[in-house]
């Protein structure tokens, strides 16, 4: 897997100007075409339960959604024309407080209109996930529907 530092222009353009990603402190750790790892640093304003200091499930939702979106963007090279259609998340266990959360996502299928991705949120070990997700994304906008098929065309 190539590191983000080998792919700075790609990594930069995929997250640039997303205010909510900035508000979460979300950044790309590693990236290659269709495969991305992102990190959200632990922060007090992300706590969902003040008794346990566990991070809110919504942070994981946003992290997985964004990481899957970046994975789709890195494969389709579309910018700002990717909309989440549906997102399904299974929560496996509560996150450990005071530790960062990472997410790995992979875009595993792209058709003319839709891209499919799956992801996993974890802290120290990807095999011991906090949550997993499956997502579908709509590609293109009203004015420019779908993906420009590179030669062969999509499904």
């Amino acid at each position, binding site marked *: 897997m190539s590191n983000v530092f080998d792919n700075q222009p790609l990594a930069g353009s995929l997250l640039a100007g997303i*205010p*909510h990603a900035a508000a979460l402190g979300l950044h790309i750790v590693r990236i290659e075409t269709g495969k991305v790892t992102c990190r959200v640093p632990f922060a007090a304003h992300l706590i*969902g339960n003040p*008794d346990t200091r566990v991070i809110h499930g919504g*942070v994981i939702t*946003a992290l997985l*959604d964004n990481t899957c979106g970046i994975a789709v963007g890195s494969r389709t090279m579309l910018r700002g024309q990717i*909309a989440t259609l549906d997102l399904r998340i299974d929560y496996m266990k509560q996150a450990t407080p005071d530790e960062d959360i990472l997410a790995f996502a992979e875009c595993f299928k792209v058709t003319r209109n839709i891209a499919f991705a799956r992801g996993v949120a974890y802290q120290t070990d990807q095999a011991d996930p906090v949550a997993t997700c499956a997502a579908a994304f709509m590609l293109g906008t009203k004015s420019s529907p779908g993906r420009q098929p590179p030669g062969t065309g999509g499904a």
Partner: protein
Amino acid sequence: MDILRRAIAEGRKPDLRELVEAIPYCRFLGVETDLKGNELTTILRFSDRLIGNPILPALHGGVVGAFLEITAVIQLMLETDSEELPKPVDIGIDYLRSGRPVDTFARATVTKHGRRVCNVRAEAWQEDHARPIAALHGHFLVKPIEPGAVRGE
């Protein structure tokens, strides 16, 4: 949570405004509650940091999902006597329209109230309730007060 334990001990429903204020992430998003009788509407106050697509502009999908999840949890707090916040087991979010940069509202219904797990549906809208921007369905683990536990003291 302390707020929930106190409410149960006093034999009343928790103060939702106090509850939301006590959760840092709810404050960060800008979630408010509006309770009329037993009907709860949650409000997500728009702010620039909720944007996920600055070109359209549109709300971040994760923000809309988190808002629906919070709505489901608060609805469960209203309908269950629990000392702890319900924990999400799984959620599915359907994105129906892009979220415009304005305030968003949501309501949730507890479809099935099990002893350990509840099934909840929630819907978010903006200007027009008949045109929802997203819908959630999910399962949440609830921890009811143990039978025989001290109540109403």
